[in-house]
């Protein structure tokens, strides 16, 4: 046996300080309480401030007033029509953007020449704010549906292309190698390996960009529209109907949340194997 004496280490006199981890966990119960509080506290504050009379009703309507405005709009059918108009535009604009950006991003992530050809121009275009195109789009396409749908396409297509390309590029090299040794040619690797591997990531990108499209449709409708949730807000502004504006904002928020949750569920189902 050989014993090695270690050099003397200076002993600290104070007890060693406890190191705390940055990431901490809370119990399920606490998490639920916090979730409820996250919505309930701002809501209660709103109610308390509007009820106290510090702020005039005209600026900050109380929840019951907003509820009444909401039921009025539902009864007249305005809300449903506006909602359908907005969702229709999202469906067309976002759908078109997806039809272009997913294949294009897929190409950029797989085929060697597509990346250097498309990346620079898309890299420039995506930093141009879509809403800055509104005047130009109106000059080019008029104030009808086309210019609104075009705005959504512009706002979504570039980001979604680049995000898709990134996801597609993340397919491990080894998986592609293995597939080739199993006799799979390019088309089969694209369809049976790259696509399923990328699908959860593509859906993640869609979820992010659906929110963008949803924001943009309201922006588009604030200017030169005769229907849609954005149009309803500008109309209400003209008559100082802040209760209506509040009701529409809440509807916009809830619909957005529904879209998000739906996409999240789809994503969880498709991507069971990832995580």
């Amino acid at each position, binding site marked *: 046996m050989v014993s090695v004496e270690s050099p003397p280490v200076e002993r600290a006199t104070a007890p060693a300080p406890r190191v705390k981890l940055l990431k901490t966990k809370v119990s399920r119960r606490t998490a639920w309480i916090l979730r409820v509080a996250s919505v309930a506290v701002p809501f209660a504050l709103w109610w308390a401030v509007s009820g106290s009379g510090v702020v005039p009703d005209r600026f900050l309507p109380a929840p019951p007033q907003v509820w009444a405005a909401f039921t009025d709009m539902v009864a007249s059918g305005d809300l449903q029509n506006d909602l359908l108009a907005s969702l229709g535009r999202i469906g067309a604009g976002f759908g078109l953007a997806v039809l272009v950006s997913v294949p294009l991003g897929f190409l950029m992530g797989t085929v060697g020449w597509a990346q250097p050809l498309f990346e620079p121009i898309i890299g420039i275009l995506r930093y141009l704010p879509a809403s800055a195109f509104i005047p130009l789009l109106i000059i080019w396409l008029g104030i009808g549906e086309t210019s609104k749908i075009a705005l959504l396409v512009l706002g979504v297509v570039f980001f979604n292309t680049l995000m898709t390309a990134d996801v597609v590029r993340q397919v491990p090299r*080894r998986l592609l*190698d*293995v597939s*080739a*040794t*199993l006799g799979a040619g390019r088309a089969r690797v694209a369809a*049976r390996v790259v696509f399923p*591997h990328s699908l959860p990531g593509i859906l993640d990108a869609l979820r992010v960009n659906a929110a963008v499209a949803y924001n943009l449709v309201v922006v588009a409708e604030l200017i030169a529209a005769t229907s849609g949730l954005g149009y309803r807000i500008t109309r209400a502004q003209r008559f100082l109907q802040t209760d209506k504006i509040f009701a529409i904002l809440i509807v916009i928020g809830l619909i957005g949340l529904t879209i998000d949750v739906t996409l999240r569920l789809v994503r969880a189902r498709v991507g*069971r*194997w990832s995580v």
Partner: protein
Amino acid sequence: MSLRFESVSMAYTPGTPVLEDIDLDIAPGEFVTIVGASGSGKSTLLSLVAGLTKPTKGRIALDGRTVGGPGPDRGMAFQSPSLYPWRTVAQNVAFGLETRGFSRQARKERVAWLLDEVGLTEHAGKLPGSLSGGQQQRVSIARALARSPKVLLLDEPFGALDVQTKEDMQLFIRQVWRDLGTTVVMVTHDVEEAVFLGRRVLVLASDPGRVARDLRVEPLGEGLEVKRSAEFLAVRAQVEDLVRREHRAHLAAAHA
């Protein structure tokens, strides 16, 4: 099947070859293991046979036909099992069979047979993520064997497994080799494994990679206990010395 290297050289960057002037003949049904220090290009050697990399000089021929790219006549498994995580075990094994020429029925039977061979029948419907490392590697090997390749290429297949699993897998792969009669070419950094499994052990030299020694190993016995016998230890020591010498030379070259 015979696998032939004809003065094969490979350089990823011109002027610094990873492999130089490899001449090699591998007979049908051989179990060849390849060891060598890092920088000896042993993985590159397999990659060339698989057709994933093209040699800068010379040619590789399988049954007289030049290897021009990857193909199902050469099955390959890597250190990382690289399974399709969204496919079940059975669907992973079936991947190579999903082309014209295999009826649904033929595919099903072949997959069932392969899963039985690798002992994973009861895991057929599971996703790879729920399997242990050793099981995943079995799936990967079964997948590589699906199209009855003439040669099975294994690139450090057990390198990431714990010692006990690794020894199970050594016995497993030898059994597969016996049952199927396929040629196996296996790269490993574990000399013990190379001597235990290989009927022929190739020791590669580094900078550039060449075949430094081509050893025939007589089967010393079946079980793992062979690893403790004097003859086994002697061969192992001999190979280890060769590898170590190349490793030192490689380090010296790197510092120079």
